[in-house]
């Protein structure tokens, strides 16, 4: 493949074990990332959007090998040295020590700047640390002893100030400090900030320090995990502008993770919407905002408040809350909350159980008191009757027919109703998860509507 994909991810799954029982064995898995495939091209910003708990942070960490993938592969293609042809590296299978060496190329900025800096380290040491860890070198002019700025480092470069030849030196002592100062000034801080502790700075300044720390080792790829969510609007503007400038100057590629659609719109070239561990829509920025296809993406966009009091909308409310990633809904993961769900979107026992419970609690419900206990089992629901089994079963069946006639997708999806062992068993059509399909060039969606 000779495209300029810097990262290629195939079927990535990151599951966290839930340990339980006496022997602390895994009794369940939190399916944080459940089968995600994408590619990031050099120089672009890929925005990953989703609500909390959808797994977007985990993707960022997986790319850095801060968490290990259970299944799937990550291919990383570093920039070829001296114009040579780059070879992809199987990042997911690399042993730990080699991963550490790569850490100088791939970096991450975390959400909360207050906790990402060691509170007992001076700023100077915090920023210098990556240089020390990776034993970075720099080009220094042999004549005037000045360092070549980091974004203009090229083999054989000449000193900008005096035109003299440069040599490669290990960054130590005064050189180290000079490089730290150079970068701090680039992000808008002063040299006297070197000798302060993190807690003496504001949120925006701390985030700048974190950015400096990541940049000082010349990475080519940066994961930005909600970098401005903890900051105020005005500071956010400063940081986002800074990030954009740095991307141009240093030739960086970004993975921008956020739950704030407006911010992602400003920063990203392509957008991927994530829900419960899967990408449900991937598109170019313009295409996405002009015409979001997936109902969840539409709902997300409509829920974002517009800062314009004249365009107050009737906030179109998505019902319910995000389900737990331990046992995600079967079929299309969004179907329980989807306003336009179809019968074959993957209705299952749990959905019917919830609907029946609500219905039986309503005033004057025909099935009130008919249900003793319900047990959902994948695509089936077993109902144990209360009172007279014949009468209750009939009431339930009538109810199901009635709702089906009313056109509710959940009830239209019922495949069979049978009486087994004194219980009423309702079975649904088995449905698969919709695949991410390209509907228009560059615009893919995972939804049965298309």
């Amino acid at each position, binding site marked *: 493949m000779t495209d300029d994909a810097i990262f290629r991810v195939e079927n990535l799954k990151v599951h966290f074990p839930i340990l339980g029982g006496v022997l602390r064995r895994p009794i369940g898995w939190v399916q944080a990332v459940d089968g995600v495939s994408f590619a990031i091209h050099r120089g672009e910003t890929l925005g990953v959007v989703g609500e909390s708990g959808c797994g977007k942070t985990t993707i960022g960490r997986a790319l850095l090998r801060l968490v290990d993938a259970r299944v799937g592969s990550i291919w990383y293609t570093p920039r070829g040295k001296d114009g040579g042809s780059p070879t992809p590296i199987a990042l997911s299978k690399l042993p730990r020590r080699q991963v550490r060496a790569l850490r100088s190329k791939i970096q991450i900025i975390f959400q909360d700047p207050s906790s990402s800096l060691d509170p007992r380290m001076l700023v100077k040491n915090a920023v210098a640390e990556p240089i020390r860890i990776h034993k970075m070198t720099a080009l220094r002019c042999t004549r005037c002893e000045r360092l070549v700025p980091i974004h203009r480092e090229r083999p054989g470069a000449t000193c900008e100030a005096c035109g003299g030849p440069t040599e490669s030196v290990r960054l130590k002592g005064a050189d180290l400090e000079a490089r730290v100062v150079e970068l701090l000034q680039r992000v808008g801080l002063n040299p006297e900030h070197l000798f302060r502790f993190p807690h003496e700075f504001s949120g925006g300044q701390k985030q700048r320090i974190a950015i400096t720390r990541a940049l000082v080792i010349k990475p080519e790829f940066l994961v930005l995990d909600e970098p401005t969510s903890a900051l105020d*609007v005005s500071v956010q503007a400063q940081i986002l502008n800074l990030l954009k400038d740095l991307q141009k100057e240093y030739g960086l590629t970004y993975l921008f993770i956020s739950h704030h659609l407006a911010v992602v719109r*400003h920063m990203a070239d392509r957008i991927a919407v994530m829900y419960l561990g899967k990408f449900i829509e991937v598109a170019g920025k313009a295409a996405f905002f002009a015409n979001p296809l997936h109902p969840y993406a539409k709902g997300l966009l409509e*829920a974002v*408040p517009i*800062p*314009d009091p004249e365009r107050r909308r009737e906030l179109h409310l998505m019902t319910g809350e*995000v389900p737990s990633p331990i046992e995600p809904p079967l079929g299309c993961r969004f179907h329980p909350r989807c306003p336009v769900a179809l019968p074959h979107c993957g209705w299952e026992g749990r959905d019917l159980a919830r609907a029946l419970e609500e219905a039986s609690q309503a005033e004057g419900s025909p099935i009130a008191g008919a249900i003793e206990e319900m047990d959902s089992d994948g695509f089936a629901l077993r109902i144990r009757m209360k009172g007279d089994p014949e009468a209750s079963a009939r009431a339930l069946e009538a109810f199901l027919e009635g709702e089906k006639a009313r056109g509710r997708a959940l009830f239209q999806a019922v495949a069979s109703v049978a009486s087994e062992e004194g219980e009423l068993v309702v079975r649904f059509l088995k449905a698969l998860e919709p695949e991410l399909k390209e509907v228009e060039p560059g615009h893919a969606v995972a939804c049965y509507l298309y």
Partner: protein
Amino acid sequence: MVDRVLIVGGLKVNFYTYAGVVKALDGIDIDLRPNETHGLVGETGCGKSVTVHSLIKLIPMPPGKIEGGRALLHAPVTCRTCRGKGCPECGGSGTLDTCEACGGATKCVKCRGFGRYKDGKSCRTCGASGLCASCGGSGSRYLDLLALSAKQMREIRGGSISMILQEPMSALNPVLTVAEQVGEAFYYHQRAALVHGTLAALDRALKDIETSRKSRWRRPILRWYRFLYRRMERDPESRLLQSLRRVPVVRRYHRWLAREMRAQSLDALNMVRIPSPEKVLDSYPHELSGGMMQRVVISIALASHPRVLIADEPTTALDVTIQSQILRLMADLKGQLGTAIIFITHDLAVIAQVCDRVSVMYAGTIAESAPTLPIFREPLHPYTRGLVRAIPGPHEDVQRLPEIAGSVPNLVTPPSGCRFHPRCPFAKAVCKEEKPLLLEARPSHRVACHMYGPYAEQWTDADRLLPQEVVTR
């Protein structure tokens, strides 16, 4: 209908710390109208939380100290002669609503409405305005929140003024069930209604016994309970009854009240649209999701039908879809209960969607205060302008977000004069010397900026108004 529910004037709060005196609030003026949602916007550290916390005296008093100002809450009392039923004394409304100080005359008592004394000095009580300081010149009955005793303030908190905070997880006690916590709110603030309901339930039970002639042995017990509750009706705070709760066996009388509390709690949960409220009542907070917890917190806050609800960043910690649900809920409930809301946030987009009026705060001062539309269409104060332009909207593309240069000042050594002058692109010499007052530049639109005050000639009209290009969204 009274003009203002809450009047805050000239509120000054200092914090005496090791690092120096933090002049957190430097003369805050807020007017809260009945049933309005008033947004309080500003960056971190500008003093929004300090403002509302000082109103109900929740700031730590060493090192904090309320240096001056007034905070008046409209507080009509039930007419004692008729007990709220209506009589000639109170004019049939059941409530007394005349200012105690001026008797409804709206004139300042000290200077008799002239604004100055006989010797020419301006009256300090009313600030030379001539209006009664205790009612802000409205003539209605107001309560000075800053002058209340600890006991009175405890009744106000959660009663007339409720507050909901940012993190619903921390607001709820993790070892108590939802029923216990919501019930507690009713117990402390709606005791009369609870007792009333209990008595009704007891009467029903007694009538049942009469008609069905079953379990007649319970009659004397129920009569005893009814006696106790009638006692409680007359004296809700009765010490005797409260101490009876500690005596085993006798304390069973409380169960009837507890049942009523549960019924009211159920209603409260239904009001905030929580699904399966019965189950939720018996759950612990950690078993609920963030959105549900925030709804529970809202129901606790609204249990007492407060006049003012203070919402301190209630949706910042929630997902955007849940946020929209909660905002809609609050808007509906406000209409139902007739509560005025002070909505604190740093997210201007939320303000645009839910607020009627907005006050913009900067470094402990109010920069601008106006209805929502003018704030976005015609932001007068340079800081407001900067804020409005710095928001990325989800519906347009801008290459670079406009920034406000500089950063928030250190409040131990705040800038002299106008606190925004070091960052203001329009600052002139007078801005450094004199602090601008919050004056009305347009009808109902107040700004604290010299460009619109007595020194306005120093600027041209071009400086003042926002160019149209940013306005079209």
